[in-house]
């Protein structure tokens, strides 16, 4: 597409914009891919190319580690084309982007995402649940279910950490509440057993021995 270089961008047709953006996209040049997709959308906002540009631009933002921009583009796409055949992909990519906000390469070694920025984790959880609810029998739904297991474990782990924080400071009612939230909202998470034990210990410290005994029974029931 050598003639592209002579012609100033203002005269490019939509195909020319799209080809340039797509070639950048294909060899992973996310920054310039983003630039040309944005220009395509600005100059030809309504064509078929614009529809495709939204999705590829969002993916480019996601890979360029700008999840918030990706989510913005996908929300716009979902608003403009509620009946688009690729809607499932849009919802799933939105969930992936939300999931990546709190990601850090240190998480595999030392740090634990459970004690950071829980808001974006909850946003990711809601996004994955929306994928499953709207497109139940797609492989996006299957992938979403797996991620949901990991995220619910993270949310439960966080509540347990906060429960322990309050327990250490003799704020036993706060600890009990956090433990109970795990049992109610994330019953089958890895932390639910530890949550029951925390619930019992907190009630014992508050002098509610009968309640503590009842909780102990429940612990033994599902051992």
């Amino acid at each position: 597409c050598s003639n592209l270089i002579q012609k100033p961008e203002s005269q490019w047709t939509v195909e020319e914009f799209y080809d340039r953006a797509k070639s950048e996209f294909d060899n992973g040049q996310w920054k310039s891919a983003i630039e040309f997709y944005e220009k395509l959308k600005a100059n030809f906002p309504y064509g078929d190319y614009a529809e495709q540009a939204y999705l590829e631009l969002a993916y480019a933002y996601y890979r360029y580690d700008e999840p918030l921009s990706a989510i913005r583009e996908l929300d716009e796409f979902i608003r403009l084309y509620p009946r688009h055949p690729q809607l499932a992909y849009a919802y799933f990519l939105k969930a992936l982007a939300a999931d990546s906000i709190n990601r850090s390469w240190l998480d595999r070694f030392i740090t634990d995402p459970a004690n950071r920025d829980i808001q974006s984790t909850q946003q990711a959880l809601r996004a994955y649940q929306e994928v499953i609810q709207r497109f139940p029998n797609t492989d996006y739904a299957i992938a979403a279910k797996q991620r949901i297991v990991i995220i619910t474990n993270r949310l439960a782990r966080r509540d347990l950490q906060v429960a322990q924080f309050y327990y250490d400071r003799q704020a036993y009612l706060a600890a009990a509440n956090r433990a109970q939230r795990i049992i109610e909202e994330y019953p089958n998470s890895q932390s639910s057993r530890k949550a029951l034990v925390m619930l019992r210990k907190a009630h014992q410290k508050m002098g509610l021995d009968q309640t503590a005994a009842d909780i102990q029974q429940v612990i033994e029931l599902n051992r």
Partner: protein
Amino acid sequence: EDFVISDIQVQGTERIGFETLNTYLPVRVGETLTLGLEQESIRALFRTGFFNDIALFRGDNNELIIQVVERPSIADITIKGNRLIKTDDLKKALTGLGITQGKIFNPVEMERVILDLRRQYHNQGYYAAQVQITSEDLPRNRVALNIDITEGAPAAIERISLVGNNTYTDRRLKGQLLLKETVVFGSADKYSRPKLQADLETLRSFYLDRGFAEFDINSSQVALSEDLTEVYISVNMTEGPQYRIDQISFSGSERIGEDELRELLSLETGELFSRSRIIAGINAIRDRFSDLGFAFAEVDPRVDLNQEDQLASINFVLEEGSRVYVRQIEIEGNTRTRDHVLRREMRQFERAPYSLQAVRQSTSRLNRLGYFSSVNVDTRRVSDDEVDLVIRVEEQPTGSFTAGIGFSQLDGISFNLGIAEKNVLGTGNELELSVNSSVAIQSADLGFTNPYFTKDGVSLSTGLFYSKVNASELNITDYTLDRIGARISVGYPTSELTRLNMGLRIEEVGVNCNTSNFVDCNKFVSDFGKQNAVLSLTGGWRYDSRNSFFFPTEGHRASLSAQAAIPGTSDVTFYKVFLDEAWWTPLTENFTLKLSGSLAFGEGYGDLTRLPFYERFFAGGIGSVRGFEPNSLGGFYTPTEGSNRPRGGDARAITTAELVFPMPLIEDSSNIRLSWFVDGGNIYSTLDGVDPSEFRIATGLGFSWITPVGPLAFSFSRPLKTEKGDKTQSFQFSLGVPF
């Protein structure tokens, strides 16, 4: 007649994609197209504004064919003749109206755009402004828009006439207003509606704060001259009588005693009725209720005016509402700092009575951490007696990192690494590590502090340091020092704002007097030998109520710390005392006044009378007295004494007055500050020699910026009071030195 749609095809579209159109279509493939649905589809498609013409056909085998003629799209927009409102602002306003490059051109819209632009000009007082929009067809069904604006002159205020103000003169009232009849420079004489509204409000509070409880503005007219360039404003008001406060009474909740209520209200009988003082009193009472957990208490002033004696009695109805509890505390925006590092600063607990004071203390403690560029604790109502607290933070760089490989003829290849991180991996722990090595100098310093060694805030900080200087490599002639040592200290809070710390420091100092037989050095070595190990006690007390770590606008920080060698453990026994005091107060919303002073002094004891020559204090440069060369205050050794270094002294006194303000012209200047400062100070040989009249003083402009590499500061200064021989330096710069 109706038919079942087998497929939908669109003809005549150039720029509109099928999916875009499909979104607005009320019919789907497989539905039967009735006459009603057909009309509805056409109406729906017209409403999109994309098409000039729409027609529906039935294909041979029941496809629905939609034939459209697209409206042209806007290729580009040129705006001419605008001076007052910048082109970008106009373009932003147009985008708001859906008129941007690439969007569909709809001639009907142009009327609305013209009206909107003219309204913007009227608001700024440009009544004579005219706007024309012409469109020019371009190939490929596109159109170019030119918007020609003739702004005309802004309507200048010819006269402001006030009617009904008997108590205060026109001059006094007009002095309060933004709009002026004549003005030297600026645009205060240009009429604009928002300014007029603000002025009316200013007049109202001016009167209501001076006893005129029944003040009212009956009318305000704005008359224009024919040529729309002159404005005549007239404001008609009735002052009403001037009231003084008579009886103050309270009703409703008795939870707070009456004398405490009166004290909080701080209104006296006989005082002029003042709306702002009443509001201030009400807020004080409401805060007191919040402290007892009644966060939604209401205080409603019922004013009863006695017109003959011009007395106003106020009955404050106290609605305490129900006691409020905090259900849960959530933290948002902590992309790096861990949850417990924030939560441990909170003085408000979950599942506990709400306390406004606790929430305020928590907010200022979080601000003092210095990890965040912004912290706010929102109270989100969950039920009529429960709230959730949401701590919303924005992380910011909390450390400095410098690394480098250098080469200089003097000491050959050098390598240095400097890390200072106040919040390592978001754990709230502090780490300082600096290593540099070159042919001449090898030094390393490692410091680690855990502010919460125990959960109640007992801190532990430890450190190791080593430095060795090879003087001949650097052709330093007078003396060099080698140091190796370790320090450990424990600190704990003694109240909400004060801390006490104590610790030990063991250090071995090697003094090498070189060729130039530096008198002080030779004398020291002959008295105490080259190597001396010193074990000293360190201790300190600190008060800190600043409302933020980097750029506080309010608060107070005072500290007293001392370091003293333990007698018997070494011959080189000396002590040092540091007194620091800094005070910030907001002058206006943007301007903060900072006053600070510090006094440091030391003395030997036992065999040593004065501080060892290498332990003396120095001053000058950024961080002490700007405008003078680093460490230059207090004079220099004379060559006959075998060195040309600054002499230093056993006492240092520094004071600073600074007016701090954000960087103008930048919206987000949360981590940049400018300041106009006056620094003063000097070095004295002994404590009793300290005499402020000998202070060296300089004034100038300081600039400080928190960058990802570390705090950056530079200053331009001009000396005010110097003596002969002072070495001044007008531009100074520092990176990584916490200010």
